[in-house]
């Protein structure tokens, strides 16, 4: 197995695994019966892993969500589809490799799949721009979604980005406009849209492919209005307060489920999706098939109405606040 990148809080788990491996080695060399000790240690390791991952702080969840070995959009697509052809280009002169997409089949259902794509190592990350899509990426996504609308293919969208790319060229090419148009046009599409936050949902760059009938989140994924690092350096005037910001911003799947912004939380294998990627993919496939079956019972007009109503409800305001002369316009 390739060397795993270790998070701080994973270290005790790895130490336990090493002990288990040593005992196994010992048993092979000396024919001593160690099955009891092994069983004990393995039970302990499982319990420790569950304890640690059941009580991750928001800041730790960010680390899990950004883990370089966490399965990516293309990893999932390759496992959950039965057929798949990647499609390229925004028809405006660009093919953004940070936002990928194509057509495929999942079970009996032909679909359009798209999502942010991070790299696994530095070289790949440079090619993928760390999953930060350019305006061309959002326009490519829109082109594929229009294609889906035309051929009545449901859309499966995978969110995994630190944010939309912030650069001179991105500004010149209209990053704001590209995202804005997607937000508006996704309300027009007559096909079911399911979005899943598989890792990091970074602000407008995530929402730009995230206007959906169903929004699902993997248990240790995060979805943020702004990165906790940026938030801390502005509101606390201290970037070191990022963990406090992560806590205050309510970025975890459980928080967002509670706030009514997320429809369902996808359970991760103990230790996070990077410990058992195939199991994570199976969870994802089953959830997508279930949600698709449900959404396909809706008529087009009911679907559009429900999507509008879903976002219409988001936000909390105080209505009929006492008229105070101080507030006269």
């Amino acid at each position: 197995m390739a060397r795993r990148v270790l998070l701080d809080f994973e270290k005790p788990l790895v130490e336990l695994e090493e002990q288990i491996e040593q005992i196994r080695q010992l048993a092979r060399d000396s024919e001593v019966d160690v099955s009891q000790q092994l069983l004990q240690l393995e039970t302990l390791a499982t319990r420790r892993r569950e304890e640690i991952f059941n009580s991750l702080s928001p800041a730790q969840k960010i680390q899990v969500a950004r883990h370089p070995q966490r399965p990516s959009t293309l990893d999932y697509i390759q496992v959950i589809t039965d057929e798949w052809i990647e499609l390229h280009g925004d028809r405006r002169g660009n093919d953004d490799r940070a936002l990928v997409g194509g057509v495929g089949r999942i079970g009996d259902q032909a679909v359009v799949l798209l999502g942010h794509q991070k790299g696994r190592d530095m070289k790949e990350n440079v090619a993928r721009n760390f999953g930060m899509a350019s305006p061309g990426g959002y326009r490519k996504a829109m082109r594929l979604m229009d294609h889906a609308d035309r051929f009545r293919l449901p859309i499966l969208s995978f969110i995994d980005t630190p944010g939309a790319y912030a650069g001179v060229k991105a500004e010149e090419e209209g990053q704001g406009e590209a995202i804005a148009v997607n937000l508006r046009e996704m309300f027009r599409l007559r096909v079911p849209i399911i979005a899943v936050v598989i890792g990091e949902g970074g602000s407008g760059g995530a929402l730009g492919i995230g206007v959906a009938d169903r929004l699902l989140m993997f248990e240790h994924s995060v979805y943020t209005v702004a990165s906790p690092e940026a938030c801390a350096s502005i509101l606390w005037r201290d970037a070191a307060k990022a963990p406090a910001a992560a806590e205050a911003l309510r970025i975890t799947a459980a928080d967002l489920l509670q706030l009514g912004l997320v429809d369902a939380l996808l359970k991760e294998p103990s230790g996070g999706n990077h410990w058992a990627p195939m199991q994570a993919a199976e969870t994802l496939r089953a959830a997508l098939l279930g949600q698709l079956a449900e959404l396909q019972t809706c008529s087009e007009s009911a679907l559009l109405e429900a999507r509008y109503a879903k976002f219409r409800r988001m936000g909390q305001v105080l209505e009929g606040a006492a008229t105070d002369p101080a507030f006269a316009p």
Partner: protein
Amino acid sequence: MSLFDWFADRRKNAPAVRASKGPEADEGDGLWSKCAECGLVVYRKDLIANASVCKGCGHHHRIDSSERIRLIADEGSFEPIDADLAPTDPLAFKDRRSYADRLRDTQRATGLRDAVVTGLCRLEGMPLALGVMDFRFMGGSMGSVVGEKLTRLVELATARRYPLLIVCASGGARMQEGMLSLMQMAKVSGALQRHRSAELLYLPLLTHPTTGGVTASFAMLGDLILAEPKAMIAFAGRRVIEQTLGEKLPDGFQTAEYLQDHGFVDTIVSRPELRGTLATLLRLHGSVRTPLSVAP
């Protein structure tokens, strides 16, 4: 993201700007006003009479929502809607200060409940749905109230078949409301989709500064996009771009003029000409569209 950058920029640049250019126009004894750009000293009432545009250099001083409404709407025609909508503190957010405290203080200081005023008005007799963001209220940041009031305004405009003008001035999303504020981008955009498919005219006016989540939603969704001279219009803040890339920023980067050169702003309108330009545009597009079903 950019809200933070913008504030950071402001903090970083503020001392230098003050040292080199003197006090802001709104500082002083109240009778006189000194232009922050060219240093021209004028009577405050003369400045206001000129739409708060400096006669020396054309600098557009920041104006609040009530002055903006006065400059756009026929006198006495503006009727606010949803003026009773007020923010809550859904996350019980606290940084160095609590969001609840910040809200209360800002409300007292500005006399506003939140960062946008919405309503219906007439412009040269033509009906118009008008939303005006107010930068004084927490940097014009978009939280639930801004999103909700704008959405209701757009829905009302659609129902009445009115054209729509939103005057943008915002640092972006209001982070104290977390993801609830991000979702306002989608909510307002959804309402605009319906206004658009009813073939109604939407004009955003981008004023200084229009950034972040506002740029990435309703600011950039106009049928025609208007901007004030030299307004800063950006998705990401300059600081982030400089830091992440080490790129030298081009001259005039992220100004209204720069965006017009790159194809994202239809026309730059100076404030004294705003009313006339809006009236012309409304007339050219038919101020109230007949319902589609009645059209021949």
